[in-house]
């Protein structure tokens, strides 16, 4: 349904780089765009939205959005866009934010009820929490009944419990509206939870593309607990060395051998893994 084949020169913090992508997206698919920051994910999303120009071609449902010098303006592309920092219209109430996009009171009411916001529809954005603002932003993006929903790290500014709640809401909204969705994210659990396919970008090129389970699990080897972390400190306690490792939000202490303590450096990115035969699972 969507065909993307674009190139664009980028001036990133690591010098110049060429964003070069060529891939298809099926109708109704939930695709995650992953990769390190500065790899061109957000730019790709903005090119799709028509907010930035690029060379190449974008075809959506046989309609040309980008072809050589002709670029369809964002106004005419049928998309919804959710910005990382919400970007709500501060001068309008929640309800007005939605109705500004399309004067469809029933749809607005329905979306606000689905996201438990109907009580607050007369409030202004500055009176809402981050999670509430992002829900409004998602509702607003759906008001135009878009063909494609673009999400730019929509949940990264929120705390963990709010993130899980919003992931569930996004999932049920995706089920109900069946909109082809592209989400920029570098949170593996979020991608696993929401997406059916993941495309990994590195330095502007696609390095991996496939089913979420294949791509995410392959990186970490098989039948192992494996975590990426950062070594924060190496302590000597009596006769052994203990390393403090940050894995996501969690700090872990591990015993290091003399050889490991000598060869590892504080601040390094490391992989922490173990064979897991009898893991204890609690909730």
């Amino acid at each position, binding site marked *: 349904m969507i065909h993307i084949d674009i190139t664009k020169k980028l001036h990133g913090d690591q010098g110049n780089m060429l964003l070069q992508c060529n891939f298809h997206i099926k109708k109704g698919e939930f695709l995650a765009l992953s990769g390190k920051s500065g790899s061109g994910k957000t730019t790709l999303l903005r090119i799709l939205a028509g*907010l930035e120009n690029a060379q190449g071609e974008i075809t959506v449902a046989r309609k040309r959005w980008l072809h050589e010098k002709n670029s369809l303006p*964002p*106004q005419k592309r049928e998309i919804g*866009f959710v*910005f990382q920092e919400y*970007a*709500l*219209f501060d001068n309008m109430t929640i309800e007005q934010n939605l109705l*500004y996009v*399309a004067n469809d009171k029933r749809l607005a009411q329905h979306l606000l009820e689905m996201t438990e916001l109907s009580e607050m529809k007369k409030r202004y954005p500055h009176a809402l929490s981050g999670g509430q603002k992002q829900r409004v932003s998602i509702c607003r993006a759906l008001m135009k009944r878009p063909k494609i929903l673009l999400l730019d790290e929509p949940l990264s500014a929120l705390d963990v419990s709010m993130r899980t709640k919003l992931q569930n809401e996004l999932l049920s909204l995706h089920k109900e509206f069946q909109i082809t969705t592209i989400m920029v994210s570098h949170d593996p659990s979020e991608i696993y939870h929401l997406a059916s396919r993941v495309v990994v970008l590195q330095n502007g090129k696609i390095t991996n593309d496939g089913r979420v389970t294949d791509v995410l699990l392959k990186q970490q080897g098989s039948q192992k607990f494996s975590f990426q972390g950062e070594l924060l400190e190496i302590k000597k306690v009596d006769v052994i060395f203990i390393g403090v490792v940050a894995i996501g939000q969690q700090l872990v202490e591990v015993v290091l051998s003399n050889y490991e303590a000598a060869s590892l450096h504080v601040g390094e990115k490391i992989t922490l893994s173990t064979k897991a035969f009898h893991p204890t699972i609690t909730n």
Partner: protein
Amino acid sequence: MNFEPFILSFKLAGLTAFILFCLALPLAWYLSETRSHTKPFIEALTALPIVLPPSVLGFYILWALSYNSPLGAFFEDTFGIKLVFSFTGLVIASCLYSFPFMLQPLQNGFETLNKNMLEASYIAGKSKLTTLFKVALPNMKPALITAIIITFAHTVGEFGVVLMVGGSIPGETKVASVAIYEMVEIMDYEAAHIYSAIMLGLSFIILLSVYIFNARQNRRFGL
């Protein structure tokens, strides 16, 4: 007590603020969006009245608007309007003199707007014009108020340019600042005191209301 100079001052300032708002708004919007190489030139050119001595500006305006210049001759021959030593000439001079005071707060207001908010409006299918009036302007009220009030106040407060271009014709070009200058010259200190006190009081109240309004707006949006 003759209040005609004050009325003239406010009439001039109100008209100048209105004309400049209409002229500066599109230019400020353009400057905030453009990446063109001409931007610094336009910015420097429009900021000139801030640094130039009023006498230099007054001299050039006088020279450009007088009957000896093509522009002045054209206006007088075709419309019968005399541009120097007339109220019309004062309005033109004030517009040139106060331009940066309207342009800069507006441009600043546009530049500090959340760009994603404007993009969200475009994606919602709204044109640039709709976005300007429904999203951009309502979200930069402090900049709007500052631009209009400061331009108004700055025009009321101008003296050098007005004196050079307008002279001191009662009811036509004799604004409050010029009237005070003349009172001091003829040593009518009592009238000068009264006029000056009125100017001082009004200017303070205008500035105070701008700062109070902006503080309230910032509190409202939690800035």
